[in-house]
């Protein structure tokens, strides 16, 4: 493998990693607040793909992008309202099952409405444009993805650390009950968290599918799982952790594919999970919790 090929792969890896990071943040935020593995998150990402396909067909692309972002955000909020919020007092396993139920429903609904066959993802003008840097040729979206990701993460960190709602989010993730006793409106904060997570997933979806070019009802499930692993790797609850985890998984996966072991690129992610749980269960940036007796 020569240096150019290497750079080419690195670039692809960073790009995939950026998308993963955007999805991983959604997992990390929700887990941080509700201690819930939101199994439906990957499917929200998939539905965002369909939103784009259908809105793009009937309206100009900037509007279609806005519709996709808004639609996905609303979907995220609605899912929380209908499937998770009634189970606030229920055992955590019930909420997890509900999340799987939503995932199952979205997948089956997508299969029913759009058939199981892959649908072509629209080419957003300009994004697929080929760019040449030296001997490396790549598309604009590949370059753009990590940049957008990092910008959004910076924005999110500002939001979480500097704004009132961000402070409320941190308070809730630290101590759910104490936060609600202090007058924080739990439901608002939770809705907001889901909104942000879904919005980022929608952005990730546009970048990811522009590159992959097709969407099918199960295209969210594996990336979803991988991004959860990315979030665990970085330390669940930590936004920079999700970013680092996303890039790590994305780059490793690309490298593994590049050296001809495609079959194991998916398996690798879960080996990362097991190894991480063995050596550092709190992840790179995670904090240790003590269970109160």
């Amino acid at each position, binding site marked *: 493998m020569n240096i150019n090929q290497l750079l080419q792969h690195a670039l692809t890896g960073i790009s995939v990693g950026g998308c993963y990071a955007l999805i991983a943040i959604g997992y990390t935020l929700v887990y941080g607040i509700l201690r819930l593995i939101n199994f439906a998150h990957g499917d929200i990402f998939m539905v965002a793909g369909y939103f784009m396909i259908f809105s793009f067909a009937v309206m100009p692309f900037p509007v279609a992008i806005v519709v996709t972002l808004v639609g996905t955000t609303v979907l995220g909020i609605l899912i929380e309202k209908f*499937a998770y919020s009634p189970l606030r007092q229920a055992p955590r396993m019930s909420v997890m099952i509900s999340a799987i139920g939503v995932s199952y429903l979205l*997948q089956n609904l997508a299969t*029913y409405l759009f058939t199981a066959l892959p649908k072509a993802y629209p080419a957003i003008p300009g994004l697929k444009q080929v760019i040449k840097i030296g001997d490396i040729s790549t598309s604009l979206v590949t370059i753009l993805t990590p940049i957008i990701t990092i910008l959004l993460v910076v924005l999110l960190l500002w939001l979480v650390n500097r704004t009132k709602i961000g402070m409320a989010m941190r308070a809730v993730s630290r101590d759910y009950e104490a936060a609600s006793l202090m007058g924080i409106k739990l439901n608002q904060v939770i809705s907001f968290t889901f909104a942000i997570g879904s919005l980022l997933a929608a952005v990730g979806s546009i970048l990811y599918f522009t590159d992959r070019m097709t969407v099918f009802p199960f295209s969210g499930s594996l990336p979803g799982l991988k991004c959860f*692993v990315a979030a665990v790797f970085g330390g669940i609850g930590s936004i920079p952790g999700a970013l680092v985890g996303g890039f790590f998984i994305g780059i490793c996966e690309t490298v593994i594919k590049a050296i001809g072991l495609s*079959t194991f690129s998916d*398996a690798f992610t879960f*080996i990362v999970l*097991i190894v991480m749980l*063995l050596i550092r269960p709190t992840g790179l940036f995670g904090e240790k919790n003590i269970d109160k007796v």
Partner: protein
Amino acid sequence: MNKLKFKDKINVDLLIYLAIVVVSVIILAFLDMNKFEYNYAISIIEKSLVYAVVALSMNIVTGFTGLFSLGQAGFMALGAYTTAILTIPVASRPNVYYMNGILPALENAVVPIPVALILGGLVAALFAALIGIPVLKLKSDYLAIATLGFSEIIRAVIASPMMDKITNGSYGLKSIPGFKSSVECFAFSLICIVLMVLIINSSTGRDFKAIREDEIAARSVGINIFKTKELSFVVSSFFTGVGGGLLAMFMRSIDSKTFQITLTYDILLIVVLGGIGSITGSIVGAFFVTAGKEILRFFDEPLVVAGTEIPLFKPGFRMVIFSILLMVVVLFFRKGLLGGKELSIKGMKKYSRKKEEQNIDEGGAV
């Protein structure tokens, strides 16, 4: 009666269950004799039985130990492939492995079906033990994602070209000997179910339940929670593996796509509908869901009423219905059809008796 006697166990329920078994065997034998007429019914029953085994095995770990494992498809795949590889008739093997050939060591490796099923279970149990060691020491949240991930790894490995000579890669395996009769299928499933019920109602099963109820309290009465969780996970996976072997026998041909995550979700659906932590719930749920899927098949066919096609009816509709059903149960009937209780005559009697008077009967209070 002052002494608790073991024969108290031989109670009305046991007799009823025996009666159910006898009646089932008679019915199944009748169906077997008229195989051509009842082919469809037989296949639904066999599938339900296999799913009942797997659902109950999932319930051991999820419903009785309180650990959320989502590796069913993966463990089933291990059991199914082990069983298939060891039972496909030697004569058919060149035909099955026509693309890549078969590993010489496996060329003549044939064992009787029950042995193959047990080996399938053991392979699944072995892998469960390995995953359990790192994961079960931590908060059990991660178990769900680790097992789900594992399930996908297994699928990827099975389909990989490196495994061609063992699993036949993406071509899958066929010519797996099926059940000779539905009675045979019933017998295998019944043995699994009885063993699982015995475990659940033993002192080991009580330790599982203690962990589900309260880990700290369980430790305070001397239960080693890591060992017990690991045991539950391994036992559950063993039976899931056997269930996978049974599924292979039912289907006669398998490939890696059989064991997608949706398979796990299908099992979860049964467990949740039947009631998490209910043995009879899992069994009834398996029949309910399997038969329901067949009965609702017409939802997937275009429906024409008075010359106009009703737009709702097209492929995928029944799965949407099942998804919605799952959500409804999770949200509104959190305990499922049976709500952690068991269908039993004794239970019903106990209920009515308790209303009259509290303090009469003797016997195992479990």
